[in-house]
């Protein structure tokens, strides 16, 4: 069965080709290509997972290219980590496609949407089973491309185009880092293989700085893709895409790929402890700052976007403190509950026709199923036991407490409180309280079954997954790890803060508006509020960098090229012409003058010859 693993990405890839060929003629039935392929992939990957759970593994490759005397091989590998990822990715994306059938109904580029989504999933699955960095990078870039195309799905709006371009450019910065890391590792070891690289690098007795640099460059790729600070700026803008895409990008595929990359190259990071520490620091900061920003967002999708960055920060934090399996655990639970949250939010947007939470309110009465599933997702994200987020976040923070750098624990713990607060705020603003916009309220209606079924299906793992797979997953990924360290009272602090966050959220947002406004006016809150509203100036910084490094120099060079370089060229041409005009004066047209010149010149020549010849 394991030898069939390449079929898992190959099926959606085949479906993509079918989309391209028959998509137009199939009308809205085109969605079935992708859904059937992904359903088959899901079954296959579940079967693979069962086999891997029983200890099977595979790593195969074939020669692909001979270049410059080196042999480059291509292949796939499936171990515990990959099997878990395959199952998660194919399962979630299958349901996202089902959901999209309802959400995208009537869209003028229905087929384009489905073909891109299917390619996206195929690329993610390829990245998962790739056994070498080269194939991984190829799949990684195709993912970036698909996200670019899907964010710009409604390209008629220039804002969406800008968001798409921004997403591509910012992740490109990370990708170039990853490329440099790959080149560095390859130039030393002449291999791209995930399995061989750590051993080969370790055996070379390289200076610590080199190993740190390689690991950090690889991590830069992950920072771009997983939207970690300071490259997080693309992800909130990426909400311009259709909501199912947000679910796909922010749950199952694109952002997960960054964390997966760190997990897949963990052997290299283990050789570079300083780099690994930086992974944790970036993760901790990324968990904290976006959580504060999420507290002041009014767009329901943006709240979820910032929460995604924050949760990915937790995963990186886990990687950084050596709790590899806790990071993957959180990746898994987060994938389910965040997909659920986005799809539920999509259902709300579908119903309300707006993304602004201040225009919603009181939707609970109209959207019972959506509301219930959204609350399940919220509880999971807010890490309230027994919902899934609690288990994985708990594992991460325990590991952070046990690590030497306790600041990471505190960042994560405070962020946990903030998470509970902003999600409670979102739920209350959206579903409870009095309706604030009569038109929205009137217009609202529950979504069709094709959208609700995926919601209900996904809410089951979102609720229960953490409790069920906590122990088996740890055994599967790190069979020989010691039991988690007891953190004493500090183990309970995140939970307490989460509960407090919920309580504050409820108290503030179920209470009167005046109280909130009074709070905002207080001199303690106002500067913090302003800072968060301004996104901690990261977007301004991004704009400055863009002008300073890209657009500014480009105008300078453009003008330089036009006026200086070409100016010199044309100047030389002009000089030649001017010289020609000068010489022209000598041509009087008088033949006798010419002859005279000739005779004189001849005479001078003869005399000179005579003088020289002696």
């Amino acid at each position: 069965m394991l030898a069939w693993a390449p079929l898992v990405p190959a099926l959606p890839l085949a479906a993509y080709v079918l989309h391209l060929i028959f998509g137009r003629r199939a009308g809205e039935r085109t969605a079935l290509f992708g859904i059937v392929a992904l359903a088959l992939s899901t079954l296959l990957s579940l079967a693979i997972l069962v086999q891997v759970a029983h200890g099977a593994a595979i790593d195969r490759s074939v020669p692909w290219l001979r270049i410059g005397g080196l042999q480059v091989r291509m292949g796939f590998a499936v171990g515990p980590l990959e099997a878990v990822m395959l199952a998660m990715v194919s399962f979630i994306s299958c349901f996202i496609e089902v959901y999209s059938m309802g959400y995208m109904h009537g869209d003028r580029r229905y087929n384009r949407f489905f073909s891109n989504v299917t390619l996206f999933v195929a690329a993610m699955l390829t990245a998962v089973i790739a056994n070498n960095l080269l194939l991984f990078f190829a799949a990684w870039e195709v993912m970036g491309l698909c996200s670019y195309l899907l964010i710009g799905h409604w390209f008629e709006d220039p804002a969406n185009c800008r968001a798409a371009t921004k997403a591509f450019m910012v992740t490109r910065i990370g990708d170039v880092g990853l490329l440099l890391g790959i080149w560095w590792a390859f130039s030393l070891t002449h291999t791209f293989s995930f399995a061989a690289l750590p051993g080969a690098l370790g055996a070379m007795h390289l200076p610590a700085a080199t190993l740190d640099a390689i690991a950090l460059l690889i991590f830069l790729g992950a920072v771009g893709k997983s939207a970690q600070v300071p490259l997080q700026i693309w992800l909130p803008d990426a909400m311009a895409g259709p909501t199912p895409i947000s679910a796909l990008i922010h749950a199952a595929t694109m952002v997960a790929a960054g964390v997966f990359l760190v997990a897949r190259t963990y052997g290299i990071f283990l050789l570079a402890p300083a780099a690994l520490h930086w992974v944790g620091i970036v993760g901790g900061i990324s968990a904290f700052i976006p959580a504060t920003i999420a507290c002041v967002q009014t767009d329901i999708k943006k709240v979820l976007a910032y929460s995604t960055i924050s949760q990915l920060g937790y995963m990186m934090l886990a990687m950084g403190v050596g709790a590899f399996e806790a990071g993957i655990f959180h990746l898994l639970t987060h994938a389910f509950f965040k997909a659920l949250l986005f799809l539920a939010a999509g259902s709300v947007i579908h119903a309300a026709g707006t993304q602004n939470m201040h225009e919603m309110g009181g939707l609970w009465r109209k959207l019972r199923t959506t509301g219930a599933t959204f609350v399940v997702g919220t509880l999971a994200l807010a890490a309230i036991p027994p919902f899934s987020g609690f288990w994985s976040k708990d594992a991460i923070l325990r590991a952070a407490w046990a690590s030497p750098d306790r600041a990471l624990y505190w960042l994560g713990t405070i962020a946990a409180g903030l998470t509970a607060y902003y999600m409670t705020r979102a739920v209350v603003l959206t579903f409870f309280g009095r309706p604030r916009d009569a038109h929205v309220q009137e217009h609202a209606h529950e979504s069709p079954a094709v959208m609700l079924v995926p919601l209900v299906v996904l809410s089951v793992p979102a609720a229960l997954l953490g409790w069920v797979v906590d122990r088996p997953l740890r055994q599967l990924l790190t069979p020989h790890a010691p039991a988690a360290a007891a953190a004493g009272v500090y183990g309970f602090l995140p939970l307490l803060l989460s509960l407090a966050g919920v309580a504050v959220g409820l108290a503030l947002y179920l209470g009167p508006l005046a109280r909130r406004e009074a709070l905002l006016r207080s001199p303690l809150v106002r500067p913090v509020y302003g800072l968060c509203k301004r996104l901690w100036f990261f977007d301004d910084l991004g704009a400055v960098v863009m002008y300073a490094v890209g657009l500014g120099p480009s105008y300078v060079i453009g003008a330089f090229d036009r006026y200086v370089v070409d100016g010199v060229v044309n100047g030389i041409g002009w000089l030649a012409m001017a010289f020609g005009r000068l010489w022209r004066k000598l041509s009087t047209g008088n033949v006798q003058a010419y002859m005279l010149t000739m005779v004189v010149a001849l005479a001078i020549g003869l005399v000179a010859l005579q003088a020289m010849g002696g």
Partner: protein
Amino acid sequence: MIAAQGIPLVAFLAVAAVLFCIGLFAALRRANAIMVLMGIELMLNAVNINLVAFSRYSAPADAARGQAFALFVLAVAAAEAAVGLALVIIVSRRRNTIEVDKIDTLRG
């Protein structure tokens, strides 16, 4: 064979040089195109005198060479005169003048 009939080589050369200078002057200074052509003929013939004189005063093996050259020049001069006069006729028809300094279409 050297210095036959007592006339030195220099005498021939002197005549040729004078003739050449007259021809050159005519070619450079006369306004009439016909005169210019005649000047050129004079110069060619000065050269011919030189050729023949040198061949007469040099080794017998080479005696014929200078004369052959002279004949060659005569033939070319004839052709040149024919072409030149034809050109002059065309120019005179077209521009109603054969004054050389009036014909300056080559001016840059």
